[in-house]
């Protein structure tokens, strides 16, 4: 089975170290809070259910199907997890899915994992939650609320997650925002339609076979102030940063320059060891050559050691 | 009389109103090996889930090893009754064979040393010692069934309750499993459609249908009663 990576899983190297670390910290805090809520609210039956649902969502992401234009639709699953489990458990389930994708299948980087969990688990679930709940309220308990809510939630979750991804890349100085945001937005507005339709199909099946699962409306659990706060921060962040990042390719550097702390941020490292303090390495060219020699020696020694140990290992069999 | 299992007038209905058990009474002596047969939906699985309190009686009572099965006695009951489910993929939920076999003893509150001893002993009695660090997914169905039995043997139960132990096995694996079951000393209640195994292994047979016990006699008599077998959709 070819496990095809989706464009929302950022690999390592594409995020600046600051962005990666900030998102790790924010994500950790939110996941820990979700853990607290899950431990309070849910019974002991939930642990095996969360494990199996995580596996199902992972497996379901392989249920790709051809969308016009060659891109493939994937079931991201955040919306379905939110409707079935409620927002807190859904965040944990999606965190596990995204985490295992990175750790085992290298789909998304490890340092970038904080941002990836943020995009797919936290944004995916909270956007789904608010969209679904809003439509449910408007529908006032009529059956179309399930489908319209499911579609809106899935589409919006994909779209907002894509915008967040583009924004993170822009702030990292990897991809200029005025190119990344519209491109990612446009592509995922299409992918989102497929996601929404798949979600409707899944909800229709569930409503027919196990209406108890969708009717008990886990997503109706009243959200705490924290969720609203997170939603607000995400919305504000998108609103403020998008235009800012669009006009300046290197958003963070631009901000740093404006605030005058770019030199400040860099100076301490230089002060520890001034750049002429390394005797013998005066120019970059020489340094590269030295590094090349050192590296080659290391690899050579390792290869030699390996060959030696292999011979030793196989010799008793031969003799 | 020393009964390992004593069920009196047990009745049970599921949340959706479906009545699964009606006035079921059954007594099994220590060390006895009893077959539980009947068509799908007869209530066999529901009855088995009552044996260690996964389901609690709607009416009547269940007593195992002198303990009445209720909320308070759950821990003690579960240590005495080993329940092995039909699908070993449900029974083996841990990453490795060791973790699965150690699960019961860990939740019994045993220390690490004792748990390791129990795991070794349980795997030895199903002849699967070499599998201790294997990953459950990579095992064959027959191997999984054996490990599934080991996961309850490690709790050193007095009673084994098995659901369809031979289902899905090829003839050789089935033979191996029957031989294994013969060597185990525990009181056994086995739910099955495999009447040839019943004839070979279990001296007493209980027939269930529509949530009721319709016959409870020596196996040879039940298997000779063609009218009874036919009436309840059983075939030798």
């Amino acid at each position, binding site marked *: 089975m070819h496990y095809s990576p989706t464009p929302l899983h950022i690999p390592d190297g594409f995020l600046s170290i600051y962005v990666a670390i900030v998102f790790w910290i924010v994500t950790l805090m939110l996941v820990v809070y979700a853990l607290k809520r899950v431990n309070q609210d849910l019974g002991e*039956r939930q642990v095996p259910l969360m494990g199996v649902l995580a596996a199902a969502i992972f*497996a379901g992401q392989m249920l790709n199907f051809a969308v016009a234009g060659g891109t493939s639709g994937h079931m991201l699953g955040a919306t379905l997890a939110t409707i079935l489990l409620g927002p807190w458990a859904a965040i944990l389930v999606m965190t596990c899915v995204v985490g*295992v994708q990175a750790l085992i299948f*290298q789909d998304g980087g490890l*340092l970038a994992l904080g941002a990836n969990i943020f995009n797919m688990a936290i944004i995916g679930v909270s956007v789904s939650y608010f969209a679904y709940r809003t439509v449910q309220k408007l529908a006032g308990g009529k059956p179309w609320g399930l489908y319209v809510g499911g579609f809106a939630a899935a589409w919006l979750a994909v779209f907002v997650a894509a915008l967040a991804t583009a924004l993170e890349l822009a702030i990292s100085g990897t991809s200029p925002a005025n190119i990344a945001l519209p491109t990612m937005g446009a592509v995922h507005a299409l992918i989102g339609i497929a996601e929404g339709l798949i979600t409707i199909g899944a909800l229709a099946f569930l409503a027919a076979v196990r209406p108890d699962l969708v009717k008990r409306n886990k997503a109706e659990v009243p959200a705490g102030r924290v969720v609203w706060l997170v939603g607000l921060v995400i919305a504000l962040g998108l609103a403020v940063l998008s235009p800012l990042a669009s006009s300046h390719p290197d958003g963070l550097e631009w901000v740093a320059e404006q605030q005058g702390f770019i030199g400040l941020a860099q100076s301490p490292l230089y002060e520890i060891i001034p750049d002429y303090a390394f005797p013998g390495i005066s120019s970059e060219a020489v340094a590269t050559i030295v590094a090349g020699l050192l590296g080659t020696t290391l690899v050579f020694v390792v290869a030699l050691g390996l060959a030696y140990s292999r011979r030793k290992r196989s010799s008793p069999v031969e003799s | 009389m020393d009964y390992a299992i004593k069920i009196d007038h047990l009745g049970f209905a599921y949340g959706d109103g479906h009545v699964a058990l009606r006035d079921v009474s059954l007594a099994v002596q220590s060390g006895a090996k009893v077959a539980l047969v009947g068509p799908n939906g007869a209530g066999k699985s529901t009855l088995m889930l009552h044996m260690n309190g996964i389901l609690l009686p709607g009416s009547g009572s269940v007593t195992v090893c002198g303990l009445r099965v209720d909320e308070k006695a759950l821990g003690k009951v579960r240590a005495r009754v080993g329940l092995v489910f039909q699908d070993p993929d449900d029974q083996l939920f841990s990453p490795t064979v060791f973790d699965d076999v150690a699960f019961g003893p860990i939740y019994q509150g045993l220390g690490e040393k004792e748990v390791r001893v129990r795991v070794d002993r349980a795997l030895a009695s199903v002849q699967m010692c070499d599998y201790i660090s294997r990953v459950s997914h990579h095992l064959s169905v027959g191997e999984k069934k054996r490990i599934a039995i080991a996961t309850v043997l490690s709790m050193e139960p007095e009673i084994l309750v098995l659901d369809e132990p031979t289902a899905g096995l090829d003839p050789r694996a089935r033979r191996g499993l029957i031989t294994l079951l013969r060597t185990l000393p525990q009181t056994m209640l086995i739910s099955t459609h495999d009447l040839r195994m019943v004839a070979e292994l279990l001296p007493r047979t209980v027939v269930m249908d529509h949530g009721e016990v319709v016959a409870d006699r020596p196996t040879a008599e039940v298997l000779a009663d063609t009218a009874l077998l036919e009436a309840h959709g059983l075939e030798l």
Partner: protein
Amino acid sequence: MHVHFLDPYKPRPSLIHAFDPRVKLVLALAFILAVALTPIGAWPVYVLLFAVIVSVVMLSELGVGYVLKRSALALPFVLAAVPILFTAQGVPLLAVPVGPWTLTITVEGLQRFITILLKSWLSIQMAIVLAASTPFPQLLVAMRAVRMPRLIVAVVGLMWRYLFVMVDEVLRLLRARTARSGDPGLPGARVGGSLAWRARVTGGMAGNLLVRSFDRGERIYAAMAARGYDGEVRTFALPPIPTGQRLILGIGLAVLLLLVMLGYLV
């Protein structure tokens, strides 16, 4: 049928495989962090980091080809970094005519682009070695060692166990779909139906999978409860890390720190 090929773990009698999983996880993360911290254009350090990863790949005996092939996984994402070639401010290097426009590649843009590529490539190789040289149960041990919450580790463990079972089910569903997707061979007939119809069918399969997981979740809960599970996740205490492994960890971290510092000097 079993999906073995999904499991990236490859057993080998190698030094890397024999590492304590906790030491391995921390060193792998430290390597990726070091790569991220190395500044743009510090080529000598990248050469050294490359030598380190090549040595690790060789020591792991996984095969350089295998790791290279898998590392291509992140390749499509490179597209996201291409615009930086043209948009970074700096000394013009090369003008590329694209239709009516001319795009100018700058030296800074090129440096930055290559640095992103290198970082990504070096990091993913380390992640591949980690996953391919460590059996999953040991990775769970390592996760616990770095203080991952127990509930998360428990869910990840269950997820891993049932991932294979679920993938088998998905493959069965897909095969059933394929078996029924006939091509009528009529000119102009749309094979496979409309997009909405296909999405609905796929959604139905996803729903099917979810219903099955609810049923399975119930059965697993019963199997756990039957063995005394009470909602709390219990495990053994982790054994101490051997002194030799601690030494390797210390040396590894020191070398990586040195490399990062070197990056800010050259």
